[in-house]
């Protein structure tokens, strides 16, 4: 069963990064619908709202005002209706500690923000294709870990 469009949500306070991200998704072969949250608070309010259609993948920046990405991650994993969300950390940090720590907290994917557009496009293509396999092929989401540079 092919889903019509993949729902993507990005929480990032940087406007340039959001635009960059949106443009990259427009060039991905699989059809997607991209939404944004501007900070951690807005993200959590959006996810907790009963009318919200939950995203297929949530891209989460670690450094955000009001509530950090890590705080959001921990909160999401403690919330019953949210804990199965596929979470991709999307961060400028490439410290091994951050990476392993967010994986332990339950993130599925860790993406180091690439410096150029083509690299971002390639990464997004990979994530979306792989995620689609997870949707349709009975792969175990609990052991779905992916690190992209």
């Amino acid at each position, binding site marked *: *069963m*092919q*889903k*019509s469009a993949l729902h993507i949500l990005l929480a990032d306070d940087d406007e340039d990064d959001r635009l960059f991200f949106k443009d990259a998704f427009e060039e991905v*072969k*699989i059809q997607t619908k991209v939404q944004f949250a501007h900070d951690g608070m807005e993200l959590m309010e959006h996810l907790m709202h009963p009318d919200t*259609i939950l995203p297929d993948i949530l891209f989460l920046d670690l450094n955000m005002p009001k509530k950090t990405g890590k705080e959001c991650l921990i909160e999401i994993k403690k919330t019953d209706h949210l804990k199965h969300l596929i979470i991709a950390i999307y961060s400028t940090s490439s410290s091994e500690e951050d990476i*392993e720590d967010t*994986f*332990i*907290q*339950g993130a599925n994917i*860790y993406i180091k923000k690439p410096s150029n557009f083509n690299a971002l496009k390639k990464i997004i*293509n990979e994530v979306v*294709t*792989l995620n*689609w*396999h997870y*949707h*349709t*092929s*009975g*792969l*175990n989401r609990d*052991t779905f*870990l*992916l*690190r*992209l*540079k």
Partner: protein
Amino acid sequence: MHALKLPLILLPSIILFSKIILFIFSNIFYTMKLFIKFDINTVCSLFLKEKLGERQVNYTPLGFGEIELDKNLTAEELESMKNDLEPLGLEIVENQKSVLVQKIKDAIIEMVFMDENGNNLKSSVYLAEKLNHSYGYLSNIFSEVTYSSIENFIILQKIERAKQLIIINELSLTEIAFLLNYSSVAHLSTQFKNTTGITPSAFQRIIKKRRENLK
């Protein structure tokens, strides 16, 4: 004289009475016609809502008879859903290519997760024989529908099995490499790292800590 007066008075009421009887009879003997205006979309969505509701699934209509479910149904659920909808005149249309892709995936999973010999088989020969199509044909359809190759999917499944085996923690990485028909541990480790971005030992450590974290 007196005798004549009575029927005269009664006559109009008899006529009226017989008309009433005729009216009643006509309604018994003749079928009734009603004109119904219906909206096929409403009817269809009512049935869908009922049948999907029984399965605790929500859906969004996308127009032109296409709907999107908020979760994936298993093959059995989809089958029972089909059987439920059929008497109502509703049929789930399946895309032949998607069906074939699902068969390819099922065959690969069966092959990778088979306990003995599964991973010694040559996958192209195995798939072509099992699905009765040339490997080239299968490979093209698969790429067209999933935007990734059969080879990639096989690697993905082998790594998935390796993950399971690592978590169960009964076999050493060397034994796992042998079971999954890798030429060496190094080969398995490299493919694991290429597929997931992390090494098998980091994977093992993360999953272990994550589980302790949840307790």
